[in-house]
């Protein structure tokens, strides 16, 4: 057992860190620090910088543009990216549909989609959840019927994150209504510009609209847009969801936020002195830091295990990452609410142009607190995660 990173790994961290320092647009970083939403342009600009460097799809196989990094290097890259902070690659393309295409797609599909995913020439969104199919995803009803060389798609998806920006969607559709629920599903990709696709924003409690409802009304899709085999979509979906387990802990994000809390708590006064001098507040901050340290170590255990034994055998500790990671993210937003106190209330009166430094940092704290309630719901709610542990780990 050894905690230390090698000299090469430390040098790699330095390289990554200095690249971010030199290349992340300052305004993009500021907005992330303040918990603001970024525009499509801001995100795409950064992702293309990253892709030009060769780091846009770092974990893909080398032949498709990946880096060939070790598990530890990926870990370091993610941690630095999250804690700088810089926008994370668009998960829907890079972490979700990309690996499904290079694993199960045909050569034509790989050639057609993968480079455009890497350079975000296409913005992808995920068509999984439906109004009646949340945790029970396999009950989905959106239907794709084969008509000659086309699919005719009808139905509705929901919670479709950033669909308003999307060029492409990957969609789970029922293609065999007579089969048992997991068996009759196919994985189909198509353009969001297709006739019959309607996107309706859902305003969330933080005031933002990052999720949408997407309606399909006799959408015609070429048959060749099916990925892999017909009626095997559920397998690909499981592959996709199991693919990114360590990133979900978001240790770097929470680290960055805790540093920010410590910094703000040294400036904001309570009882005539900085709130950081309040012992009760400091205890809560320490409690959160300790939880995060434990999570970081748990994550490192998973990373080290993957590095040694490959990704095949899931480490039981990885089930912990989603539950604890989301709880800690939520706690950090609670601590920020505590720091800001009565100034949580004003709606974003100053805009996000960075012109009022004295107050701008307060604007997104309450929305960020509201928004972060989602992290224990999405990606398999924490209750679903507990079901998984009970079944897969404890054998209950």
């Amino acid at each position, binding site marked *: 057992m050894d905690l230390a990173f090698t000299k090469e790994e430390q040098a790699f961290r330095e390289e990554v860190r200095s690249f971010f320092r030199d290349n992340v647009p300052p305004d993009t970083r500021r907005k992330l620090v303040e918990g603001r939403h970024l525009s499509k342009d801001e995100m795409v600009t950064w992702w293309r910088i990253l892709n030009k460097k060769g780091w846009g799809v770092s974990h893909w196989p080398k032949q498709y543009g990946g880096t060939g990094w070790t598990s530890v290097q990926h870990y370091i890259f993610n941690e630095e990216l999250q804690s700088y902070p810089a926008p994370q690659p668009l998960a829907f393309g890079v972490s979700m549909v990309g690996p499904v295409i290079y694993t199960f797609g045909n050569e034509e599909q790989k050639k057609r989609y993968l480079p455009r995913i890497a350079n975000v020439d296409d913005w992808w969104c995920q068509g999984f959840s439906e109004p009646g199919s949340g945790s029970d995803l396999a009950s989905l009803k959106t239907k794709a019927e084969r008509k000659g060389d086309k699919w005719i798609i009808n139905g509705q998806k929901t919670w479709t994150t950033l669909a308003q920006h999307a060029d492409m969607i990957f969609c789970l559709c029922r293609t065999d209504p007579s089969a048992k629920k997991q068996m009759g599903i196919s994985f189909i990709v198509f353009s969001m510009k297709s006739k019959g696709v309607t996107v309706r924003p859902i305003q969330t409690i933080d005031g933002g609209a990052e999720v949408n409802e997407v309606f399909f009304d006799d959408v015609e899709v070429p048959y060749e847009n099916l990925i892999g085999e017909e009626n095997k979509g559920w397998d690909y979906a499981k592959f996709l969801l199991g693919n990114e387990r360590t990133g979900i802990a978001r240790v770097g994000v929470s680290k960055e936020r805790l540093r920010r809390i410590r910094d703000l708590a040294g400036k904001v006064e309570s009882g005539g002195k900085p709130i950081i001098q309040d012992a009760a507040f400091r205890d809560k901050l320490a409690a959160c830091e300790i939880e995060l340290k434990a999570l970081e170590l748990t994550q*490192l255990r998973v990373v080290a295990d993957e590095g040694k034994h490959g990704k095949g055998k899931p480490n039981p500790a990885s089930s912990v990452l989603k539950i604890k990671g989301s709880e800690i993210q939520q706690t950090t937003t609670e601590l920020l609410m505590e720091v800001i106190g009565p100034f949580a209330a004003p709606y974003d009166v100053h805009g996000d142009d960075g012109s009022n430094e004295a107050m701008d940092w307060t604007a997104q704290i309450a929305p960020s607190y509201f928004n972060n309630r989602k992290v224990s719901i999405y990606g398999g709610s924490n209750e679903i995660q507990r079901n998984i542990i009970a079944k897969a780990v404890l054998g209950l």
Partner: protein
Amino acid sequence: MDFDLNEEQRLLKESIDGLLTDSYDFESRKKYVKEKGGWSRTVWGKLAEQGLLGLPFAEADGGFGGGGVETMIVMEALGKALVLEPYLATVVIGGGFLRHAGSDGQKAAHVPSIVDGSKTLAFAQLEKNSRYDLFDVTTTAKKRGDGWVIDGEKFVVLNGENADTLIVTARTRGERRDKSGIGVFLVPANAKGVAKKSYPTQDGLHAADITFTGVEIGADAVLGNPDDSLALIERVVDEARIALCAEAVGLMDESLKTTVEYIKTRKQFGVAIGSFQSLQHRASDMFVATEQARSMSMFATMAADFEDAKERSNAVAAAKVQIGKSLKFVGQQAIQLHGGIGMTMEAKIGHYFKRLTMIENSFGDTDYHQRRVADGAGLI
């Protein structure tokens, strides 16, 4: 970065797990509790035979040169089997003082008899009002001739009843809570003026309250600098905390395993109660708490070698907080999921719960260590 055990460490784990599987089931333990002083000389002899009592000592001193990871492996195994024998007091703490501060003469006088299992030690540190502050010492050591005279009272000295040698913290100068002026002394348990009141502890171990009245010891009884040994005490106590973290992980592992087995077999309403989702989720949360504790136990084990003492202490404090929170949750929920049977002395789960509970209050509880982290520069 590596969290795997090496080949030798794997063998060590197999050998101690094997020894305890053979000689430490719950029924045997009930017999050992009733032996003199509350533990088994036979088991202690077996631990010695396998070289476990000499594990952390340098080969030159007659030991096997094991490090923190080796101690972690042993403590986890001892926790899993709910072992009563005084490994922590003798090998981890007593051995720690001898390794870090013992002169050649002191090591020659004490290490061989620890390694062969013929003698045990105890750490007389806690005072009536010191609570968890290691520097809060009123017991005095006054110079007389070449030697020293010890006066004072120490409490809840684990293995105090049986130990051949007591390691006593005492003040050579200054006021009650001064950080300097504290020394560490080796006191023969049968020295004139040592009076012991022994009793069993809540978790089935044995401890003693010990009064020192004009106890005369020689110059060779001083470990390290008699006027300035707080850093030494902190270091050894940090190692004790790390060992307790590992023991707690072993206890939590076994508590979770026992509980899961129980809810798989206990039937109510015609089905195994483990089929109920509320119980499944509770068990899953116990798993999460145990894994987080294991991570911090490993962290603390590796932190023992940090060069900066402050950084080491901070890491150990953080680990003790995580272990304290996890053990409380796992222990309490293990009883809850067992239901009525968990309340009885006949089921083993209650004994695990009691040992876990006592670990939280050893060498600083959760609040104490959380405050230490809070008052420092942060962990992130």
